[in-house]
């Protein structure tokens, strides 16, 4: 295997760590804020903070680690993150279900957000992917569950983007799409997700080029979203001077970077597919 090819795979692997780090950061900040808002009524509400902090640390370590072997501690941390996310889904579903109205629009809007913990699972899964990617070799078919690893990572990123767009759609519907910019996260990422999904199923140069473009746009949108949400906080009564209320009741600042994280893992997965499967 050429030095160049090895470098591409290593870079992609570390880029997966970056994506996982961004997701973990978003979860850390978001669950920190939201669970503070929920007064940490249940001790389990600390779990995602601990798990996301570990995932963040592990990912940063991974970003800096140039060795081409899996790291057992990082592997364990990512597994914990994925598991915490799954458990979180259960807790959130329970919270929705026990409220008057059950699975109603009202509770989907205001009870524990049903999709949010999944971001932690994604961070864990894609982080594990980063570890696995370090061991990938060109022209070798490494499989998980009978699916080629790089394609599985692309599919997972696509699914994550679609899910995150779904959550944005729900919460922006709650905000009645009062600002035209609120349409962006429910249009751009789904296109990127569809193209990425297509690339995972049947890689070809044209799909890849398109997918890369839309993924980059999505990554940018994740950054811009923080700015738009900061503007949204300012539009609430008292603006930033009333931060102790508006940061909690206004649009969530840490939510949009999830898009950036998933776009980065998607781009990394595309690189892996291209390099390993010689697309193009």
């Amino acid at each position, binding site marked *: 295997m050429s030095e160049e090819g090895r470098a591409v795979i290593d870079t992609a692997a570390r880029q997966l760590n970056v994506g996982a780090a961004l997701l973990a950061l978003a979860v850390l900040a978001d669950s920190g804020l939201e669970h503070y808002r929920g007064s940490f009524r249940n001790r389990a509400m600390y779990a995602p903070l601990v798990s996301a902090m570990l995932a963040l640390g592990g990912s940063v370590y991974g970003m800096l680690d140039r060795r081409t072997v899996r790291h057992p501690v990082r592997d364990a941390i990512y597994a914990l993150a994925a598991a915490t996310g799954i458990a979180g889904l259960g807790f959130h579903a329970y919270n929705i279900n026990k409220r*008057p109205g059950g699975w109603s629009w009202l509770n989907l809007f205001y009870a524990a957000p049903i999709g949010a913990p999944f971001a932690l699972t994604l961070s864990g899964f894609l982080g594990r992917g980063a570890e696995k990617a370090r061991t990938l070799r060109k022209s070798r078919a490494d499989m998980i569950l009978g699916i080629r690893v790089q394609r599985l990572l692309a599919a997972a990123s696509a699914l994550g983007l679609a899910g995150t767009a779904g959550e944005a759609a729900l919460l922006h519907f709650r905000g*009645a799409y*009062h600002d035209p910019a609120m349409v962006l996260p429910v249009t751009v990422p789904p296109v990127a997700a569809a193209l990425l999904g297509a690339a995972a199923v049947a890689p070809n140069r044209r799909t890849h080029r398109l997918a890369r473009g839309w993924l980059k746009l999505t990554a940018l949108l994740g950054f811009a979203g923080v700015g738009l949400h900061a503007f949204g906080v300012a539009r609430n*009564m*008292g603006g930033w001077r*009333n931060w*102790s209320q508006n940061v909690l009741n206004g649009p969530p600042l840490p939510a949009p970077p999830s898009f950036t994280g998933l776009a980065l893992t998607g781009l990394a997965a595309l690189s892996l597919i291209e390099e390993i499967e010689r697309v193009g």
Partner: protein
Amino acid sequence: MADRYPGYDVLAKRESPSWNAQTRRVIEERLALDPDRHSFFTDDEWPTVRAVCARIIAQEIGDAAEVPVAAMLDEKLAQDARDGYRDSRLPPQREAWRRAVQALDAESAARHGFRFHELAPSAQAKLLELCHRGELHDGAWGDLSPAEFFGKRLLHDVVGSYYAHPTAWNEIGFGGPASPRGYVRMNYDRRDPWEASEARPGRENQAFRENLRIFETNARRLRHESRSLGGDESSAGAASRPRALGGRAPNVFRAGAWVPMREYPLDEPVDFVIVGTGAGGGTLACRLAEHGFSVVALDAGPYWRPLEDFASDEHHQQKLYWTDERIVDGENPLQLGANNSGKSVGGSTVHFAMVSLRFRPEWFKSRSLLGYGADWPLDWREMWKYYRQVENALKISGPVRYPWGPKRPRYPYRPHELNAPALALAESAEALGIDWAPTPLATLSAPRGRAPPCVYRGMCVIGCSTNAKQSVLVTWLPRALTAGAEIRDLSMVGRIEHNASGRVTGVHYHREGRWHFQRARNVVVAGYAIETPRLLLNSASSRYPQGLANSSGLVGRNLMVQANQAVWGLLEREVRFYKGPPSLAISEHWNYNDRGKDFFGGYAYMSQGPLPQLWSRVNSSKRGFWGERLRAQMQEYNHQVGLKIVGEFLPQERNGVTLTEERDQYGLPVPRVTYSWCENDKRLIRHALGFLRQAMHTLDARDVWEETDDTCHLNGTARMGDDPRTSVVDADCRSWDIPNLWICDGSVFPTVGGVNPSLTIQAIACRTADRIKALAARGEL
């Protein structure tokens, strides 16, 4: 008395975002009040007044923490600030107080040989107890009934003053002022870091530490933020000097700012002069101006800028209510003022509870379809279209799917999060197996233009200081100004003029100390169900001796309020019903379900959140609590929960508005409002109270009691119909008698239904504007 909220002090938040400049001004004045200051009562009367107040509140005179209740009472009487109604059995408040103070002293002298204030506290309390029960008979009372005075005058004035004071707020753990910052955590047993922590048994120290933290957080703020009162200092003057003058009107979205306003001369007739700018008049002014008519809209109240004029304070915000005196009588005399009348540009929508409901379709034909009341000359499908128009204009926040009635389009904005009292309603409804829903409310759940979303400060019915509330003041009226309408604030219309041919020619109105006459081709009366008939009756002439538009004799008759009974109880959990809009959850089950009813009509019921002053008055006037008992009951404030109905009362010709010989500050006759419930009304109340008691039972509430006699809203008194003999106006709100005289407000309702009327009033106004446009196009105006 146990310190339930140790270390808590609302004043610690004075420099925090919980207080705006106007609130700081208002509360500072109250704190500066000398407990011994008096200008209405004489030095001779004063010790008695202070002693009476001390007993009613159970506080010691001269105590460092004494709340200046007597001084606040004196201030009210010195200004002669009224409540908006007076029981016909009572003299005006000044006279009542004077006579009662003298009578109490006389009673005391006769029984004990001392003046009242010289008695031991226990003897004073005993004497007041007798007064409460009506068992005092000294000649000094004259025709003043001691029990009536005690229940309707003394408790109302004294108790309300105490609970308007920060000391009382600390005692009951009330959040206090809340603007611009409101609240975030609204579920049971949740509190924001800036709310009082309750010392439940075993956690007294923790509560103390948490309450101290509020103090410490804000001490840091004091060092970091320089203090500025800011705002428009002249806002205090808004109540006395007109603002909409000189080609400009207040910009309601920015402190101190203005918007251009077109002005019309007095002597050239405008197309429409509209009397009143509330749900009827304000909406109509907007739509007529947008249809291209020249419009001048007059309102007796001031033109507020909510952001700078509104304090987070019940006592101060009484400035929004119609508190001019009205005499009330009948078997069930009404309480007027706060709950049902507004005197502001924007009318009572400036302080309404924002509940925006559609009528049940059958109610428009209740006589033909349901067998009671009277039919409306309107078709529900057409009204459905106008409801939609209004819901869009106000960006109503409502449920995605509404459980009752025919399919309706989705509300423009999503529902609000529920607070604890709303969750209680939802839980109990589910336990009883009936539907409930988040209430469709005219307050924003997302930003709109310059208006921010609701901050859940819970002070909706004393005026929204953030503009999240979609009142007429911040929705229709800015549009009206843009479309070229002129709005004249502080303009009280006293009389409508007509010419020899019987057509009306304009209105006489009082502004800046003088009477003016505005000429107009059409006059629209939109003063709500008391002022509208009052103006029509007061405009009587030799040609129309019964008053204008009154050939049917029905002007002023068929007044309909709505049943507003409640069941209250205490929960183990913390509820803190001061947070969030008061009625976040609703059930219209008994509006749409007629099975098992022994009465005509229906009722909706909603969750509740009265603020401390109102709540203390409910406890004193409805339960007869005062002294230690009231203070102890009020300490349960944060555990209180309640369900309240809006129920349909039937139209009766005996209920209504007439004129008395008494004159008000404009020299106009004071209206008399007569009300008695009919058998059907009483059956509806019985049914509702029984049902709500069941609902309260499912919540395991304790100390459950029924508030049996409250009412809300005013409708009827100029009903619309198909027949000039049995109605005052036609379906277009045009009077049968005078073709260029229109009535457009809640007065035109033939029946009231079991929902809050504001959405229907606005829908009718929108329809009327469209009809006028159509009639004008055909040359039929």
